[in-house]
């Protein structure tokens, strides 16, 4: 029996045709030259700004900044496109399909992958043309967005770490906020009573790393992990071994039944924590009556101060049709005029050095964060960041859980995990 296959063939030919057409369309779009098209006289262009949806307060800052920018650039319309959910997960396909916004937020921690692959535009040329002085910015923040001799982003704000302490608890015990490790230990010991632990810090790399660096250690150097340096063990042993596991005058927030030390502090479960300025609005909401103070991190005896810098920059899309204007926008948003709006709201710290001083004067209780910027290391570990932070967190956790006998062994295991 002969079976007529023609309809079947027709359908499949049509199907394949549809698919290949779709493919071609995508291909053509991809290959199209995205030549720079400067805005013509009288023509209005729209610039898209990408970022994550954050608090209404932060949104208000950005809205105010954009309104200011539009005053001086009537022919440029600016649209903010917040990403809800996992930012990096949504940004990557946008870049792959060349539909990302003209400028967008990028965290220092995630930036190397983008800079290394060359999927964002180097801005050195635009910096020169527009007379932007990178020296105006906090050095560590700028450095976080430089890769192989090129600059890719203008940092918009940053956070550092400081020691938050519960004023009432310290006053009652008659102690002052600690300035070095010995004092921290003694203070924590005095404050540990009635269901309160003296000090709380999570078993995470970006919390213990400053202390590691205070004693001359480091965990990352030029695209390589350096967990197994002998000087690294000191800080881990002190915090997670001696204070938490042995003396029990400090605790991981998880063992206190909360997710992060900020909650332990707000709930009055601990007297001292190491956190960033993000804890301030959290406390205002969750524990408005709590009296607390902020001081710089205690420094190891004989060591030098160290801190982390968490920073976010505006970066420029490689596929933007209006790169010159887009750069002007990001230079404004991250520049002195734009950041003045940031200072006025008092929420994030301005990356501009002069404004940083302004900020410290106006919000004197937050001065420790600004002061720390001078000696902070960016929270960024090249293209191996995700693995490195994971290994670093696990080392501290292993020490805390007792699955590793001491810090040296835990760090050796972390190093091994990095080299696999």
């Amino acid at each position, binding site marked *: 029996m002969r079976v007529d296959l023609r309809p079947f063939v027709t359908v499949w030919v049509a*199907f394949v045709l549809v698919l290949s057409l779709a493919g071609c369309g995508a291909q053509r779009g991809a290959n199209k030259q995205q030549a720079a098209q400067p805005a013509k006289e009288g023509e209005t262009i729209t610039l898209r700004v990408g970022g994550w949806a954050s608090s209404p307060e932060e949104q208000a800052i950005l809205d105010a900044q954009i309104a200011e920018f539009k005053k001086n650039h009537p022919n440029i319309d600016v649209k903010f496109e917040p990403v809800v959910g996992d930012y990096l997960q949504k940004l990557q*396909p946008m870049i792959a399909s060349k539909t990302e916004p003209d400028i967008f937020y990028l965290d220092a921690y995630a930036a190397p*992958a983008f800079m290394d692959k060359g999927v964002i535009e180097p801005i050195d040329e635009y910096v020169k043309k527009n007379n932007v002085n990178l020296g105006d910015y906090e050095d560590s923040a700028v450095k976080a967005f430089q890769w192989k001799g090129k600059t890719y982003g203008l940092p918009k704000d940053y956070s550092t770490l400081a020691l938050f302490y519960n004023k009432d608890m310290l006053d009652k015990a008659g102690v002052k906020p600690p300035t070095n490790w010995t004092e921290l230990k003694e203070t924590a010991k005095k404050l540990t009573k009635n269901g309160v632990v003296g000090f709380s810090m999570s078993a995470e790399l970006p919390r213990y790393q400053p202390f590691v660096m205070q004693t001359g250690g480091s965990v990352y150097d030029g695209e390589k992990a350096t967990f197994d340096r002998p000087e690294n063990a000191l800080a881990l042993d002190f915090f997670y071994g001696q204070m938490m596991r042995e003396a029990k005058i400090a605790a991981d927030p*998880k*063992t206190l039944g909360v997710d992060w030390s900020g909650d332990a502090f707000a709930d009055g479960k601990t007297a001292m924590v190491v956190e960033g300025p993000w804890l301030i609005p959290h406390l205002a909401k969750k524990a408005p009556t709590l009296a607390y103070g902020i001081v710089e991190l205690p420094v190891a005896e004989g060591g030098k101060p160290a801190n982390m810098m968490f920073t976010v920059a505006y970066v420029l899309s490689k596929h933007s049709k209006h790169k010159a204007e887009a750069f002007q926008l990001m230079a404004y948003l991250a520049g002195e005029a734009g950041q003045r709006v940031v200072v006025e709201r008092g929420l994030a710290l301005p990356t501009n050095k002069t404004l940083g001083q302004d900020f410290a004067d106006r919000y004197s209780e937050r001065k420790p964060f600004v002061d720390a910027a001078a000696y902070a290391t960016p929270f960024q570990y090249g293209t191996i960041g*995700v693995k490195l932070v994971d290994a670093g967190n*696990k080392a501290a*956790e292993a020490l805390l859980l007792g*699955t590793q006998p001491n810090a040296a062994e835990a760090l050796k295991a972390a190093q091994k995990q990095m080299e696999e």
Partner: protein
Amino acid sequence: MRLRGDLLTAYLFVLPVVVSLAVFLVGPIFYAFWISFFRFSFLSPEQSTFVGLANYIRLFHDPRFLKALANTSFYALGVVPVQIAVAFLLALIVDGQIKGKTFFRVVYFLPTVTSTVAVSVMFMYLFKNDGIVNMVLERLALPTVDWFHNVRFALPATMVMAIWTTVGQLIVIYLAGLQDIPDELYAAADIDGASPWQKLRYITWPMLRNTTFFILIMSLIGTFQVFDQMYVISKGEGGPQDATLTVVFYLYRTAFKEFNMGYAAAMAFVLFVIIFVLTLIQRRLFREETA
């Protein structure tokens, strides 16, 4: 001529489904298989490099993958038998002549229609360091454990949760199977003077063979793909110390946190082969017994 017209119409009718399946299911699967041979970059696919079988070879030397595989196997081997046993027992009870059985059916089924995330959050409260489970243990003067933050207990606690959540669904399937068994069989057994145990052993259990086979396969596939409970409980880390890291979880981290798509795709295909082989083995076993 007529027939051809009908055929064409028929093909046109199935076309939308064929196209959408091909574009959104079959196509991506083949594409994923393709990129599993690459060091694939999501950010700029043009910069991907062909690495042959390197991703697959690396998998079997990756201690984290092996750990994830061990965790997943432990989880599956622990959850599936218990799940089936509990579901079978409860189904028998609910199927029997007890008062308020509709109520019990609803109660057992409720966890199934609750979202895994909500269930996970609830269990986190139960198993918290200062949670209800520990409070009860303390009352009984038993030692307490910080369940989800303990290397030894995090995975078993998750398994308890998985059993609790999925048993309801299995009960419903078993109930359907039980209702399919003809009453005559039991009547005949009664005449022969069979004991309740004998009826269970020689009538109910064998008659439910197909149901059990179906449940076994579905549970195994489900447990080998487990992800969301672990994700919620370990806050996306797989901790403590990789104790709750499963294959799909590791795959997710590799693909969407480290953005190493090629390696993650290779993992997906290894998992596929494992599940496929397990299913084949079960099929062979069950067929032999029937024959």
